[in-house]
């Protein structure tokens, strides 16, 4: 279970998160929606400890994770449970695709024989709709959408308990987006993983969300089951779903 209580984060004068409260139960799939630049990516990074919140508490399964220091066994154990797809894919461009996907399997505590790691990488690439031919290419040789899917394969390679997806379908064609939506849905329903996904794509929200949370103005504006999203009664959510320019969400921000 992931629990955020009154999380604040500012970059200089730019106050991004101003009191986020959010709870995600084990095995559930939550989608975070919200305008561009409202701090969705920052929120995920706060949970992972990549960004240090200014104030507030974040706990995973009851243990406070905001003060885990880099390099301690506790932090290593914490990170070992996570997978993360970055918005910009963040592939290691010095390594070929398969070594990116199998990164964790090639070193450290989860180390496997090279051939086996490669085998697993190929299998994960297949799951995100990439042929084995790309395994030996370098990230710079792939299209943006292909890079995104390699990033996705890397995030799920060790079948982590908790997976964060930052805009998994942005830049993909509708068919491939459908494949990825099914994949994310499958990961939570079959593997029982907990997932937190950021997306702007409403069809994606409907396909993968158990719960939806809307981030607006540095706070969670609305949260509830995906089924109630259309009748939320919240003007921000309604405007976001319909994509209207008029409404409480300003278009210049």
């Amino acid at each position, binding site marked *: 279970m992931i629990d955020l209580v009154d999380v604040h984060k500012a970059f200089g004068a730019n106050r991004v998160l101003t009191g986020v409260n959010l709870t995600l139960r084990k095995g559930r799939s939550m989608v975070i929606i919200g305008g561009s630049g409202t701090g969705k990516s920052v929120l995920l990074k706060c949970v992972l400890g990549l960004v240090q919140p200014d104030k507030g508490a974040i706990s995973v399964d009851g243990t406070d994770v905001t003060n885990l220091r*880099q390099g301690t066994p506790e932090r290593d154990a914490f990170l070992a449970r996570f*997978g993360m797809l970055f918005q*910009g894919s*963040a592939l290691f461009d010095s390594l070929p695709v398969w070594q990116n996907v199998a990164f964790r399997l090639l*070193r*450290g505590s989860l180390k496997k024989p090279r051939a086996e790691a490669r085998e697993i990488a190929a299998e994960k690439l297949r799951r995100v709709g990439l042929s084995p031919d790309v395994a030996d290419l370098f990230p710079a040789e792939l299209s943006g959408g292909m890079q995104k899917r390699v990033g996705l394969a890397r995030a799920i390679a060790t079948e982590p308990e908790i997976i964060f997806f930052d805009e998994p379908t942005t830049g993909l064609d509708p068919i491939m987006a459908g494949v990825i939506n099914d994949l994310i849905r499958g990961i939570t329903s079959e593997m029982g993983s907990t997932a937190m996904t950021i997306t702007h794509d409403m069809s994606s929200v409907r396909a993968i969300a158990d719960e939806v949370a809307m981030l607006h103005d540095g706070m969670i504006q609305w949260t509830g089951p995906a089924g109630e999203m259309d009748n939320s009664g919240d003007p921000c959510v309604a405007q976001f779903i319909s994509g209207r320019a008029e409404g409480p969400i300003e278009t210049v921000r």
Partner: protein
Amino acid sequence: MNVLAIIGRAVLAMLAAVGRVTLFAADTVSHLGRPPYYPREFAQALVQIGYFSLPVVGLTTIFTGGALALQIYAGGARFSAEAVVPQIVAIGMVRELGPVLVGLMIAARVTSSIAAEIATMKVTEQIDALITLSTNPAKYLTLPRVLAATVVMPFLVGVGDIIGIMGGYLVGVERLGFNAGTYLRNTIDFLEPLDVVSSLTKAAVFGFLAALMGCYFGMRSGRGAQGVGRATKGAVVAASVLILAANFVLTELFFSA
């Protein structure tokens, strides 16, 4: 009053920077004793920093050795001391010019590429990705590069010293009319073990500083292409200045007595 405040602020900022670099260096070295290690990355860094720097080292030192021979011959002629060319070339190359010039070339070639690579990784969230994949950037990126540079620099400088002396020898024998055998004998008889030891010690220190600055500035890079550019520039300048300063301190330590 205002002037004092400005000076005070600059001094404080400098002290803070020195403190940060020192902590960074101490943290890097501390990982030597704490697994996991990444031998593959270390081997790659050895090849990148060592092997691929050989051409640049050779070119730099052969021309310098040659020019040094010409200068000493011309300068020595003013007080009839042309004969000291082999000795002065040897001592100048081995004690000073070899380590310093190779150090500066490494700052240009290696520090810049380390800083640009790590800064780009930082800007494109690859460092964040490393952390989420349970890999400590200090162990995976910094330590292999710093260790490789420290280990391989004495070899580079050793090669540079020899090629520099050879440059002096070629000029001495071909242009200045020295007897080949005498030139070599004078060089070898004159050099003392301390000269070579100081040369290689300097090399190791300069290699450490060059790679450390590349990593330090890369890891602290600001955002965007501009951040990468600033990090690279800062790293090369800092490495060059530190190498020259360390050279002075080490020369003082080795030869002032």
